């Protein structure tokens, strides 16, 4: 700032800065203008029924073809789920959104939230599989689209998080060298390979190890790979939280006569996890987007259905519109997670500012 006080600094402030601002605003306005011209004014919204896509092709380059979304949105959202039953998959998405929304609201932050999630997942399972209450049975291989993405991410995190806590505790268990060594080996082995190779292992190598006739469903194999992967990363985040706790907390808990598990549950974990909420949610968000990698092993998650939707010759060339839709959906969910994280931080950190490091 001191530099700005001399003559040259004033010059920069008076002339150059406004020019840069003006230039950047113009650039931004031009970009916005071109985008809206493409996305709104010159866009083709619908095609007359029964016609081919020539109308869209004529607009290619200067106008968006939103008709591709109208034609393909059900495939993008639900994949191979039987067309007549897709209302069930739609309800499942609604269930997930409701559960996320409830988790966002502070009024529901009590133990019963776990119960709500439990029953929500049961409802989701019933809707997806069916086979009861007069719903037709739909096997997992016909699931696809957004429900798959939400299932992979939600269940992956739900199982990975407890695993991560156990592994993080195990890594700090000085008195149990075997368990500690196993935890280190697990984290380093999983962290040392890309997620893609883990998915390939689950998809390509695992079936070869199992004898003929022993087929674990492809979706389940991918889910397991995700749990293992997320578990290793979350474990390191949790370990960071544990390491950040002052030693006095452990000693204080021991002095109160609490057992190891009591101390961990009541004293250590609540504080340790609170420290690392931003990092946890960061990992969650990254992981949510990583689920799109299942496309390389042939599972039709949201990303794969989106890509496949524009492979039909009539609709080739309109991938930008579909990718925009996918981006909007992914952003919606990731932004929600970020909001939940923010509220958790605000609520949990406010009354506890006064924990102080012993000198």
């Amino acid at each position, binding site marked *: 700032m001191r530099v700005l006080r001399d003559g040259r600094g004033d010059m920069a402030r008076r002339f150059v800065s406004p020019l840069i601002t003006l230039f950047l605003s113009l650039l931004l306005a031009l970009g916005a203008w071109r985008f809206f011209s493409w996305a709104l004014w010159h866009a083709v919204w619908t095609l007359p029924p029964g016609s081919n896509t*020539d109308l869209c*092709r004529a607009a290619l380059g200067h106008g968006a073809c939103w008709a591709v979304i109208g034609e393909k949105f059900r*495939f993008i959202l639900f994949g*191979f789920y039987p067309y007549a039953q897709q209302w069930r998959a739609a309800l499942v998405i609604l269930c997930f959104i409701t559960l996320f929304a409830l988790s966002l609201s502070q009024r529901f932050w009590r133990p019963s939230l776990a119960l709500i999630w439990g029953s929500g997942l049961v409802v989701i399972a019933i809707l997806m599989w069916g086979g009861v209450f007069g719903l037709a049975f739909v096997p997992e291989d016909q699931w696809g689209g957004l429900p798959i993405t939400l299932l992979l991410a939600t269940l992956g995190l739900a199982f990975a998080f407890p695993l991560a806590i156990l592994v993080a505790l195990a890594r700090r268990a000085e008195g149990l060298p075997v368990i500690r060594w196993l935890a280190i080996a697990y984290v380093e082995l999983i962290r040392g390979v890309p997620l893609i190779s883990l998915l390939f292992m689950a998809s390509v190598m695992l*079936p070869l190890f199992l004898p003929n*006739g022993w*087929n674990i469903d492809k979706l389940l194999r991918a889910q397991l790979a995700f749990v293992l992967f997320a578990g290793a990363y979350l474990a390191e985040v949790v370990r960071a939280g544990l390491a950040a706790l002052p030693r006095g907390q452990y000693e204080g808990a021991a002095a109160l006569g609490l057992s190891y598990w009591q101390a961990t549950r009541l004293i250590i974990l609540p504080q340790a996890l609170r420290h690392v909420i931003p990092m946890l949610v960061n990992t969650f968000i990254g992981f949510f987007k990583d689920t799109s990698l299942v496309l390389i092993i042939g599972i039709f998650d949201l990303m794969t259905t989106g890509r496949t939707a524009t*492979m039909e*010759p009539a609709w080739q060339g309109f*991938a930008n519109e579909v990718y925009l839709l996918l981006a909007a959906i992914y952003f919606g969910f990731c932004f929600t997670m970020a909001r939940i994280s923010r509220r958790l931080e605000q609520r949990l950190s406010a009354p506890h500012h006064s924990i102080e490091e012993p000198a």
Partner: protein
Amino acid sequence: MPPFLCRPAASPGPARGVFVLVARAIIGCALALLSHGPAQAAGSGSPTLDAVRARGVLSCGVAGNAAGFSLPDSQGVMQGIDAEGCRAIAAAVLGDQRKVKFVPTTTENRFTALQSGEIDVLVRETTWTLGREASLGLEFGVINFYDGTGFMVKKSSGVTSAHDLDGATICVEPGTSTELAIADYFRVNNMKYTPVEIQDLQEIHNAFLSGRCDAYSTDSSALAGFRFTQGAHADDFLLLPELISKEPLGPMVRKGDDKWFDIVRWVSFAQITGEEYGVSSRNIENFTNTTNPDIRRLLGIEGNLGEALGLDNRWAFNILKQVGNTGEVWNRTMAPLGLPRGLNGLWNRGGLMFAPPLR
């Protein structure tokens, strides 16, 4: 099991006892799994056929992202010549073309999926080569599509034959068999060309359309699909008549299950024979009183050909009634892409589709 997982069992130290126990548990578990081999029912003599019947559904590996071969439509129903191949096998074996579980596979996991028994048959536009048949433990049943590397040019260029391409620039995807085929072709014919190598499909299309290259080369089926995407401008492009490489595509099965191999190949032959005798899904009921002995044997009115295969005698009737003959399948899948029948026509109409006699 990868060797690194076994290493802990041998490492000395205080933890040794635990590791030995864990290792024993793992080995014991593996042995228990291995001894539980595939169920060798006495039934048909074909483990795959027995497995399909017990399951009540055919597990069929497809690509799921290739227009004309296997690609879900807007309602999530798999369409294409490979998908119809799966349905024909299901119609023959289970009597119902709907009893197919389509398993989308990638180029990486397709062979493993078949080797491990996850799928019963792989119908995934896979080129029949000696290398594959000799080394994978898999074999090709029959050829369901004769593809080959072709060239597409703009009609305005006046080029009508590949021999006119001396000195041309050619758009090609790097690292593909197409690239090699072009190099060989131009060398053999003592012509010169300039390759324009572009990785992304959309970019190749744009480069060709904008005139950066005189010709675009890839598999002829993909070229036809590309031409189709040009809608009203499709007639501006010409697919040159020469195919410069052989790409025979067909369904694969595991070696060692000869009865299943027979079924897969004769399902295809039955469809070819149906077209040869003019029996289609629309007129098949008119043939129930036919006196033509060939058709009577085909439809199971006379003889025991179906039982000889280990199937119902109405196997071919079910295929032709529910899926249709080779020509019908072609008209539903490839003809809409503007692909000429060419080599894929019947043997007595200038094509290569030939079926041994059904008697």
